């Protein structure tokens, strides 16, 4: 399926023009994107460290989920919204960027995993999570750090 027309269309929207036309827009949106990813990645990392029994050992996994869920959900939404704005303002560059598609693929995988298997593990009644919690934690860390690394790579490739 040829996605080029979609990327071109995005690049030519008035929203894209508006962001490109304002010197402060892109840096500000990007800084918010980075703050969102810090909260998102950080929150998920804390849950995963707990599931691995590293550092946090006394707070039950379900309690962590309960306290962190809103922060993770909101920062994910903010990250996606700001990410989308960053994308449309440079959609044609993104089309040619080797790290962009891997990032989106990893983001989709990480998000789906987070709200399915990972969520099942963190709602466990067992304080440390189910037996397979450690596996879920490692998968989660690998996927989300993959998103982060691919995202950073966008600037380098």
């Amino acid at each position, binding site marked *: 399926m040829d996605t080029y027309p979609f990327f071109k269309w995005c690049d030519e929207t008035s929203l894209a023009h508006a962001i490109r036309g304002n010197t402060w827009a892109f*840096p500000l949106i*990007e*800084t918010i994107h*980075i*703050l969102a*990813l*810090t*909260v998102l*990645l*950080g*929150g998920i*990392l*804390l849950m995963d*460290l707990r599931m691995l029994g590293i*550092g*946090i*050992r*006394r*707070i039950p996994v379900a*309690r962590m989920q309960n*306290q962190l869920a809103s922060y993770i959900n909101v920062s994910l939404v903010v990250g996606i919204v700001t990410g989308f704005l960053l994308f449309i303002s440079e959609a044609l560059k993104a089309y040619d960027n080797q790290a962009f598609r891997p990032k989106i693929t990893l983001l989709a995988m990480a998000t789906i995993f987070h709200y399915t298997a990972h969520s099942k593990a963190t709602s466990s009644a067992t304080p440390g999570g189910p037996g397979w919690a450690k596996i879920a934690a490692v998968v989660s860390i690998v996927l989300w*750090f993959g998103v*982060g*690394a691919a995202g*950073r*790579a966008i600037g*380098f490739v």
Partner: protein
Amino acid sequence: MSLLDICQSLQDMGPATALRESQFMFPVIEGSHLLGLALMMAPVLMFDLRLLGLLWKKEPASEIRNQFLPITISGGVLMVVTGTLLFWSEAVKCYNSTYFRVKVIMLILATINVIIFHSTIDRRINEWENDWPPPSRAKLAGAMSILLWTGVIFAGRYTAYNL
């Protein structure tokens, strides 16, 4: 020898030059500095929100401190090591960057806030950790922490893109 001369000498050293000119190592170090942010700052945010009385309301403050802050220390070590390497490789540009100077000032202020908190109100944490709402000095420490570390992140981002 001026500070600028010192920065020039630092970045002329072998390892600094190698890092600056590397294809792979520099992105890895810089990427680790960014991703290490999450490791360092998430536990801090959790503890600050507890100090503000917004989260972890069932747990005594010392429990949140003891469970989360050791992770911050590991993250902090990663940030200091990667940050030092990054500075070393680009010392002159950092010296000349207003954004970087602001970042250094924010880092110093954030560290002072940490020192003040841990040497005063934190010493007496067992006296107030179950109080609701938390004492105003605890709330102030939490609020200042969030503000100052956010300032460091903002200044850091602007430094990176203007170096």
